[in-house]
């Protein structure tokens, strides 16, 4: 029962994560297979701007996946766990 309640809380997050992962993988493969020389080093002008924008998009996605997602997941899961298991205040608080 508790497992279901926790899953209900984090279901949306899991779906969002899957979508981001899928987008990331698809775009990376498309860029690579189409031999577009995407580069963060591109200076400016013409296709270089497009390349730099694509590269920035990649970096943003990876930042979300690697840096934002883990703490966000930890936050959501812990709050779900604590709310389900420890949310009800019980009477005995006395330590001694």
């Amino acid at each position, binding site marked *: 029962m508790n497992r279901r309640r926790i899953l209900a809380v984090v279901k949306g997050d899991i779906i969002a994560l899957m979508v981001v992962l899928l987008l990331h993988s698809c775009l990376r493969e498309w860029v690579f297979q189409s031999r577009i020389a995407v580069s*963060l*080093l591109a200076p400016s002008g013409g296709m270089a701007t497009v390349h730099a924008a694509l590269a920035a998009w990649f970096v943003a996605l990876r930042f979300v996946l690697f840096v934002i997602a883990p703490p966000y997941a930890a936050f959501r899961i812990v709050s779900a766990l604590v709310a389900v298991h420890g949310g009800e205040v019980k009477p005995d608080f006395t330590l*001694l």
Partner: protein
Amino acid sequence: MRASLFFYPTHFALQSIVRNRRKHMCKPPLSRHRLFWTGLALVFLPLLGVRIAGRPAHTYLEFPPLTQYVSHAPFSWPVFSLIAGLALITLGLLGAGALRGAGRELDTGCRWGRLPRWGVAGIAFLTLAWVIAWTRLPSLAAVQCHTFVPLWLSYIVVVSALTHARKGTCLLTRNTLRYAALFPASAVLWWYFEYLNRFVQNWHYVNVSDFTRTEYGVFATLSFSTVLPAVVSTVEFLRTFSPLEYGFCTRRGWSPRHPRLLGLFAIVVGGAVLATMGAHPDPFFAVLWLGPLLIWWGGRVVAEQDTILPSLAKGDWRPLALPALAALLCGFVWELWNLGSLARWEYSVPYVQRFHLFAMPVLGYIGYLPFGMECMVVADEVMQAGRKSSEPRPAVSWNTVVILGLSALAALAAVAMVPRAWCTSQAAKLWNDDSHRQHQLAEGVHEWAGDPALGDALRTGSSLFDGEWLFGTHMTTAMGLAQVIECHPELSDALVPRLATAFSGMRRQDTRAFDAKVWNADPLETLDDPDRHHAAYLGYFNLALGLGLRAASEGDSDLPQAAHWDALHDAISAALERRIEAHDCPLLDTYPGEMYPVDNCAVIGSLAIHARLRGLDRTSLLENWEREFRRTCIDPATGLMWQALDPEHRNPADRPRGSGTTLGLYLVAPAFPDLSRDLFQAVKRELTDRWLGFALVREYARGVSGRGDIDSGPLVFGYSVSATGFSLAGARLCGDRRLFTALGATAWLAGAPRVTETTFHWTTGGPIGDAILFAMSTAPRAGERPADNPVSTAGKHRHSGENRP
């Protein structure tokens, strides 16, 4: 009926004490006013003391805390004897209480039962964490500085499980939310003691100097958050044993006649000793543990809030004894695990610094007794907070605050651990010269370099830069291949033909067209012309040739057209040497009217390698070059390289920058390892920032603003893509594993690698990014070529292969 008639009254008195405590708690345990004033006194009194003593307060506020202000008094037998006497009396009283309890036949009703499954998991995890903490396995090096948290989380789980096994319940399962609130409270509590320790400096941490401020703050907070739950769980566990539960309940109570006056006295004494502590750290070193306790407890008494006085009046001494014993037990385990841990603490205590049990002087353990009481006071505040309050219900409930606080702590732990572990583990493969990974990188860049249509894929918006990138891709591919072949001779069969392809790519007419167009002369067809320097094309080509020929000569495979490449290397080296000697300055022009120190690093690196390969003595030329380079190309203020010089007067034409310096130190390393190290130290000092396991390198020194260009790549908050990537080589050349893995983690995060069984590509790098990162991440590590300085060892190690790792 096991209880004796003699003890029944005391037993019932205990029950009434608990009932009375609950009944009379009409005021909230922790009011906002008391929290404010007590907090103010605890924080500012020590600072006030050092200010009155005429010492600068800011030295006590540095972060991370340093322990360099106080030199402690030597060991003293009189002081040692006095404290030892007090300790023996205290321990005697505690022991007598336990023995008294053992002699009584009262029973808590607790029996050993089945250990819950989560407790078994806790024991397994604890064992694993202990093994990791006390061993130095290279594969676990990344986590060995962070074993405190897993060890103590396991301890908390195991002790809670033991309590559950004896009692059928424990705080962890009974009041999870309240128990969880102890973690953030614990972090605040121990940070406060860290703050007090700045004034007396009784302990300091070792093997934590590599942490940045943010890392130190995050990891310390996580570690400190386990202290309070550990002590509280231990108290609850001790209470399941009858001798400890009933041994400290006596018929002799103590009740002060004027409790509020006593509370006021405690506040005054506590405040006085805290204020004196900073000015006189030696005689007052022990008040670190007593002062806060007196102030906090006195505040509760004066405010007529719930204290231990009613318990003591009835002869119940458990609120004093059990927390003290629990902290002592935890202290023993703290010190035990600290002994073999990588990141650990050491003690420096005045007067009693002898007779160590683990790292701590044996009398230091006495400090755990008041500390246990402090823990219990804070834990009690947390557990009772929001309960039995007559104040109106706040808009945000206590439960919400605890859930948010705990979740934030979990998020903090995740952000500190997960991205670091994820990304640095991949970077570690590169540091360790993993043969398969290096082969994947080599095959990946060859897919670009071996493609005749590579030039069409490079579209920078400038034909000059397109040409530079085409040449740069072949050049760094050749450098990386040479380095991998030297490191892994077993790969030479597969990689030496790739090397020849990269050489051909550099030599091709369309590749060198960009340089020929600017100079209005082909660089390879005008080698006899001393006035057209072609420093960039010839310098980089010659350096890649030298590295490749050296690698091929040490390997088992024959380089296709080896004689041709040998002759070309000789011809270019001779041309560059002539140009340097014909010029009034040893620095050459990259393009007409443009001089870049970084390109001259390639020139001199290539000449040094050529000298070693051919056994030539270029000592005079090299020494002259280094002298001129240090004089004109390095900014004396920062130690970084000027990005550009005015060729006529050799005055700086740009600022000192990260991209030039980080690439230059890699290129110049074959000629001048010391100069390379000096530049690397300047980069670390002036440009490098680290954040939670990731490292980034600035393009301009701190406080200097500037724009990005073709050299730096785009700047994000002042950090340069190029400088960050180039710095990988500097970290390897100087043996800085920690910085390398941090830079590698950044590359992994931003580079979006695409890995197959046979190839490795950095998706956001493109051909040039792939090739640059290949060369930088395979640069020889410090010690792999110890005698690379040709000034002293020209030709000495040719063909010997003795410098291979």
